[in-house]
């Protein structure tokens, strides 16, 4: 009995599988805690969802702006890389992708598209990325696609 207890305390970590040792402990703990959270909350959460008290999105969510933001950002990243492949080592991927991105995102978030605001947005879309590109890429030698 005592030997069995001692053997429980002793631990040997096999070098070949040592990369799995700690992650397995963490995953087990996550599984236990996750199950506890599920068991404790599944009923109240389900009731809240059915009665409409729980909403994933905020009340009166702006789905248009949310969706376009979620599309615009990855398109910006993709286009930056694509342009950078065609025009490498000049930071032009960043510059040429950022100008339309800043313009489109500003237009998306602007609630009053007056002539004044559109002028400000256009100027900002050209000036901001150009200044960032000029200062960071040329002056500070920061890597850009």
């Amino acid at each position: 009995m005592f030997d069995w207890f001692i053997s429980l305390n002793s631990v040997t970590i096999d070098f070949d599988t040592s990369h799995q040792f700690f992650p397995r402990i963490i995953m087990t703990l996550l599984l236990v805690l996750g199950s506890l959270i599920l068991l404790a909350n599944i009923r109240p959460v389900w009731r809240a969802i059915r009665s409409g008290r729980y909403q994933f999105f905020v009340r009166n969510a702006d789905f248009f702006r949310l969706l376009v933001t979620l599309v615009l950002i990855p398109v910006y990243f993709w286009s930056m890389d694509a342009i950078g492949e065609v025009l490498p080592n000049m930071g032009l991927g960043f510059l040429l992708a950022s100008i339309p991105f800043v313009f489109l995102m500003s237009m998306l978030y602007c609630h009053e598209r007056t002539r004044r605001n559109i002028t400000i947005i256009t100027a900002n879309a050209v000036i901001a990325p150009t200044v960032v590109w000029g200062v960071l890429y040329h002056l500070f030698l920061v890597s850009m696609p």
Partner: protein
Amino acid sequence: MEFLELLSPAFFLLAAAGAIIGIVFGAIPGMTATMAVAVCLPLTYTLGLQEGLALLLGLYVGGISGGLVPAILLNIPGTPSSITTTFDGYPMAQRGEAERALKICIVASLVGGIFSALVLFFFAPVLADFAIKFSYVEKFLMIFFALTVIASLSKNIVMGVFSGLLGVLLSLIGSYDVSDGGNGEYRLMLPFMEPYLAFGFSLLPVLIGLFGISTIIEEAEKGAKESSQEDKVNLTKGKPFRFSVFKGQVGNLLRSSSIGTFIGMLPGIGGSAASILAYTQQKNLSKQPHKMGTGEPEGLVASESANNGLTGGALIPLLSLGIPGDSTTAVLIGAFTLQGLQVGPLFIGENIDTWYSMITALMFANVVMFVVMFYAIRYIAKVVLIPKFILYPIIVMMCTVGAYAINYGIMFDVWTLFIFGVAGWIFTKIGIEVAPLVIGFILGGSAEVYFVKSLESYGEYTVLFTKSPIAMVLWGLIVLSIVVSFMIHKKSKQHSGESK
């Protein structure tokens, strides 16, 4: 005094610029000091160590301080730590005493900031000297303690622990590094991910994604409505500011600064806890507690000295133990790594000149913050009027530059930004708490190394409990933090039940 040679005019200029940019960030609702540091990180890539740190520390101090501007003028806390500033600041602004409220807060911020910098200067080396004696077991327990403190102060303890462990698991993705005594094998990913995730997710893109991009997505979901209203920015109709307002407030100033510094030392708790605790304490001790919340200067003093007290406090565990005290210092840890420095018990001893220059930068940034805000507050107040449609695209653009440049041009880091931006937005909706997750992510790798090495060295589990008296004390602290948090949660539940 060799460090004085390192203090060039550029050093002071960058600390000042950092403080000013930080103030602007903090003054914009939704933008935080963490975001200011994260967004400006690319600027430090080509700066020297001292100059880079001066800029980042300036941003930190300015970012925390700037939050008081919208808190008072718009009733919107610029940073989470300014939440209690709204309680008395906004009523004063409505009475036309906005400038008076702002200046009270600025003076209180200066006192809190200088106080915490002094505590950092005297206390961090002592703690570091003590921590040098730690073996792998104590180091692991220190991380475990940090994680339990963060988790136990979450809204839901179980969820806090879950979030912290999830952060740890995310940090383990990649190969088990040979330089850490690992076998170099990949884990927790599919074979096609190996070229991208060989070294796991980079820290900074994860942080910028969680704190920067997720904020933009949240704002987009809310419709990116403009919160600033020009007619609300009315500074000087009522009583003017006089230093005599601080008569009888010295105790409040020192107590609240101490609370802020102490809370800052506890990893991951954040500024809102510090200012709420200091405000509640002042309310308990106030001669006229019923007046607090109606525009009383003592409430502003408590709130702002506490949240600036955080700045030095949060740097103490970072510089002496390598454990970040809050989300902003978590980003700072990335900046140190970028400069090839490893923070921990040996940091101060091995980088004494850097240590002195950091303290100088922190003090100087506080003074610049005071001078700029005190004398130019009328102009800074206009910052709250910058429209979101101009600001947010620039934030995304700067976040992208930061993520891409962090490893000298890896596109996957930019995608990491997006992945964690979306994840951060979803996490808040399903109850996963970002602060414990981030601390878990930062400390996960070290936790693994210390835990596995402890067991490999001693071959038994009980060593984690019986290695040394320090280990036993740490276990005592871990149990204490869990018990105290359960009691606090129970008490707050009772309070909310009674109020219903």
